[in-house]
């Protein structure tokens, strides 16, 4: 039996939003527990190994976190949350043991994951996400000398290509599916946020020497038992590129399993929040990518608002709050522009052939899903979505390919030993 913790505010997710929320809430005098399933705080964007220094951009907030007094619980995967009276009871699994956190306020900052779109050959070993490849390199993978095609959509592509290049990977092609005009107008808007523009230019510099093309997408990966080549096209030109890795990520999708489980209202794949980041569930706040994909700065602003609100400290921080509202508004605009610029083109939504597997956990091809009209029907007819990932990968793809809304979210949010679900008694 693991720990039983009591807090005023429980923050779920230690990415930029969660760390900001935990800092603000704790500094305002609330007892805070911050849960994250990774080995160190920072989320995906500031992923680093425990014991290493955080990346420079993350440093100030993470240093602040360790000084804030918030209790940080890493390597803890949240598997259930329910309201008991006025208190939320969160249960997480950590090293095989159940940890329970009870708190009257919860901040959901569960961030985002990569969107994977099925295409012929995407299940071959060597096909990774773009962020996935970046994460592996940051987790110590020695891929120097390997040839990689980086493809898909969004600013993450260039960031991933830069990380890979820095780690000695030969990035032989970068294919951004969005057309140049969409990115160019996005780039012009970045002039309003010079920091971001510089970042983009830096990435481009970091991968100088790698051909980067807009309006191109990967349409297939080939090889015997592993990736050996990528087929890339712009609709008219076709290129076959020999490679060892295909790093394909098509944008980000928010991790909505926890807010769905809790019963927060969700609209257009975002948690519906009010002025103070409050969700439709009493005592529950949300911040960051779950409120719409809009990058780290927006996440921090929202996290600060949510942390102050959850700790009941907005009044005495009125001036701060006004700055934060402004930052949030700018950030939301950025997020909208991001979404428009990198919207997936119809050709990408149609990459999967009838025999292409859509559900990787249960090996269900697209053809078997033809008759289903909802995710639930697809599940019962084909087992798609019933495997270990419980529809996180195929569900996000199918919502875009077929317009399916997701099935209900049930506990456990991650697979846990049966005995973890039998844990009803906790030490007080």
């Amino acid at each position, binding site marked *: 039996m693991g720990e039983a913790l009591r807090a005023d505010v429980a923050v779920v997710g230690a990415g930029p939003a969660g760390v900001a929320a935990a800092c603000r809430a704790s500094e305002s005098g609330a007892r805070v527990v911050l849960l994250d399933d990774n080995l160190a705080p920072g989320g995906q964007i500031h992923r680093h190994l*425990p014991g290493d220094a955080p990346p420079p951009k993350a440093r100030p907030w993470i240093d602040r976190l360790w000084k804030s007094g918030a209790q940080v619980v890493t390597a803890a995967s949240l598997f259930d949350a329910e309201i008991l009276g006025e208190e939320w009871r969160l249960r997480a699994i950590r090293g095989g043991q159940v940890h329970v956190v009870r708190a009257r306020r919860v901040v959901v900052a569960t961030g985002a994951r990569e969107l*994977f779109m099925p295409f012929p050959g995407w299940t071959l*070993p060597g096909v990774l996400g773009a962020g996935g490849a970046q994460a*592996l390199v940051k*987790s110590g993978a020695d891929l120097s000398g390997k040839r990689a095609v980086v493809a898909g959509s969004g600013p993450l592509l260039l960031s991933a290509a830069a990380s890979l290049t820095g780690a000695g990977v030969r990035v032989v092609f970068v294919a951004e599916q969005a057309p140049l005009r969409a990115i160019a107008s996005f780039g012009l808007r970045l002039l309003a946020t010079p920091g971001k523009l510089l970042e983009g230019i830096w990435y481009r510099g970091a991968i100088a020497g790698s051909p980067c093309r807009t309006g191109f997408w990967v349409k297939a990966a080939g090889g015997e038992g592993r990736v050996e080549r990528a087929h890339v096209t712009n609709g008219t030109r076709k290129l076959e590129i020999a490679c060892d890795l295909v790093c394909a990520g098509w944008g980000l999708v928010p991790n909505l399993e926890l807010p769905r489980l809790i019963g927060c209202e969700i609209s257009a794949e975002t948690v519906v929040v009010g002025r103070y980041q409050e969700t439709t569930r009493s005592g529950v706040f949300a911040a960051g990518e779950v409120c719409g994909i809009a990058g780290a700065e927006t996440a921090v602003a929202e996290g600060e608002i949510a942390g102050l609100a959850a700790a009941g400290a907005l009044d005495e921080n009125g001036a701060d709050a006004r700055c934060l509202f402004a930052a949030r508004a700018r950030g939301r605009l950025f997020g909208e522009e991001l979404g428009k610029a990198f919207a997936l083109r119809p050709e990408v939504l149609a990459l999967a052939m009838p025999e292409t597997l859509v559900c990787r956990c249960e090996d269900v091809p697209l053809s078997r899903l033809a008759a289903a009209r909802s995710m639930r029907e697809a599940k019962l007819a084909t087992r798609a979505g019933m495997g270990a990932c419980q529809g996180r990968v195929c569900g996000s793809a199918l919502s875009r390919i077929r317009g399916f809304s997701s099935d209900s979210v049930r506990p456990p949010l991650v697979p846990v030993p049966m005995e973890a679900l039998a844990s009803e008694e906790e030490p007080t």
Partner: protein
Amino acid sequence: MRDRMTIRVDGRSVAVARGSTVAAALLGSGVPAFRTSVTGEPRGPLCAMGVCFECRVTIDGRPEERACMTLCRDGMEVLTRG
């Protein structure tokens, strides 16, 4: 340059940088396929963040552990292909 340690993958010794995840170590040592799918396809990591479950291997006798979420430890025994 990071410290090295040794883990065993399918019976053979592999040197890995201290602080690597098991997935990073396996990929870096040239193991492309970690497991087999329900219809027998070879599979390797996809998301590297604990969401897709494609990187599952047996670690020190515990099956179905996500390699991307597990740090290497000296002397760890990893078995691939489920």
